[in-house]
């Protein structure tokens, strides 16, 4: 490996982020954490991460979706893979469903909270 890959977590739950950070750094990734969309965008500009883990439901339930949309429509960031994190499952209006929410599925992948270390690392490895 030439250089450590850099991952940005954007999630408003600091406990969740800390745990995810531990898992990722145990697999030798450099990890940055942002607690909201604004800090997230700043961190992307400053650090140019190799991958972004993005929570969909922050202050507003669609914050993450909007941020993902913005990233994928910005030539500077389009190529950074995004993994969407969702906490809401099943058949609710808030469920992120790749079948029906195709327009949002500019994201490369998605995971559900909580996630096993193995599954998370698997998904990350597949992308970077």
């Amino acid at each position, binding site marked *: 490996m030439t250089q450590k890959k850099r991952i940005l977590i954007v999630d408003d*739950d600091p*406990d*969740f982020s*800390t*745990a*995810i950070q*531990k*898992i990722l750094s*145990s697999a030798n990734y450099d990890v940055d954490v942002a607690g909201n969309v604004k800090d997230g965008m700043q961190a992307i500009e400053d650090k140019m991460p190799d991958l972004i883990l993005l929570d969909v*439901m922050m202050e507003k*339930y669609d914050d993450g979706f909007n941020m993902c949309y913005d990233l994928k429509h910005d030539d500077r960031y389009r190529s950074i893979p995004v993994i969407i994190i969702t*906490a*809401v*499952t*099943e*058949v*609710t*209006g*808030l469920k992120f*469903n790749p*079948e*029906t929410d195709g327009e949002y599925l500019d994201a490369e992948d998605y995971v559900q*909270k*909580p*996630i*096993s*270390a193995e599954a998370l690392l698997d998904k990350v490895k597949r992308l970077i």
Partner: protein
Amino acid sequence: MSVDKARILVIDDEKVIRDSCKRILIAEGHIVKSAEDGDIGLSLFKEFRPDLVLVDLKMPGMSGMAVLEEIESSDANVIKIVITGYATVSSAVDAMKRGAYDFIPKPFTPDEILLIVARGLERRHLLLESEALRVEREMRRRNMISLVSHELRAPLAATVQYLEVILGGMAGEISSEAKEMIDRCDIRIKELLELLSRWLNLATFDPMKIAEHFQDINLSDVARESIEVLKSLAEEKKVSLSLDTPKDLPPIQGSKMLLEEIFTNLIGNAIKYNKVGGWVKVALYEKDHEVWVEISDNGLGMKEEHLSRIFEEFYRVDGRRNAPIKGSGLGLSIVKKMVDAHTGMIDVESKFGEGTTFKISFPKFNI
């Protein structure tokens, strides 16, 4: 709609009645259209979207009763007033049963018709108001449920994520005793998460909204995918899984996600409530214009007295705390709701100690 100015449709084969109704009601400021028979009346109804309809009961061609029924089933909030030349009590009562708000016997004076229309429009106003309130209340309830469940899930998810780190050894060594306890914490919290998401699923389920997105679905694919998902659970329990389906099974109208939910719940139960070396068979076939699904097992089975209750929310045969096999008791009530949303029927047969069969029939698409 304002009470004083409304859209009114008059359906009557007598020109005199149509013209006089029109004249009287237009003079009052209403927008009025008329039709000389039921068929024309109904097509006009669809484009004109009236607040109130006056219908003659006795017309050549389509009867006034049939018109009434059509309108009632397409929008029950539209006020229907029956014009009748033979004001017998029975025909008026019959019409009321079919959703008419009131009736007016021929001949009538301008004052009589104005009074009855005014009362009808007042009623319409009330109906629309309470409908709007009901919708708003329902929306608030749903938002509340989603919000609460999100607030409940978030701390649980964060906790499980920490346990994952600790159990994975990423936060340093732990004693085997501590590991055992943390393992249990992990299991218990995951059960709670599962319960929450099932409850949320049930509480926010809206069959009308779901039906809007129905597509042609091939149940063979759904069955195959569900079996794939449950393969490892079956291997763990040493239960064999099989699928029997014809190549040309006709499609049904449905939601893939919900149908998968039905299959995984039922197949999951058949594995869960089974014995070592048992089997689970999924069979699909076409019969009597319907597509049938049979999910059978030779597992634990249930006693007769439980069968009528297992579709109830939170009902479990072995109760909760000390049950040897854990569960929320919500799975089958979710299944039932989702089968209903697909206008299907579900039935269960079981023999204690021998096994269980769930049978579902779905109406075939394109009969």
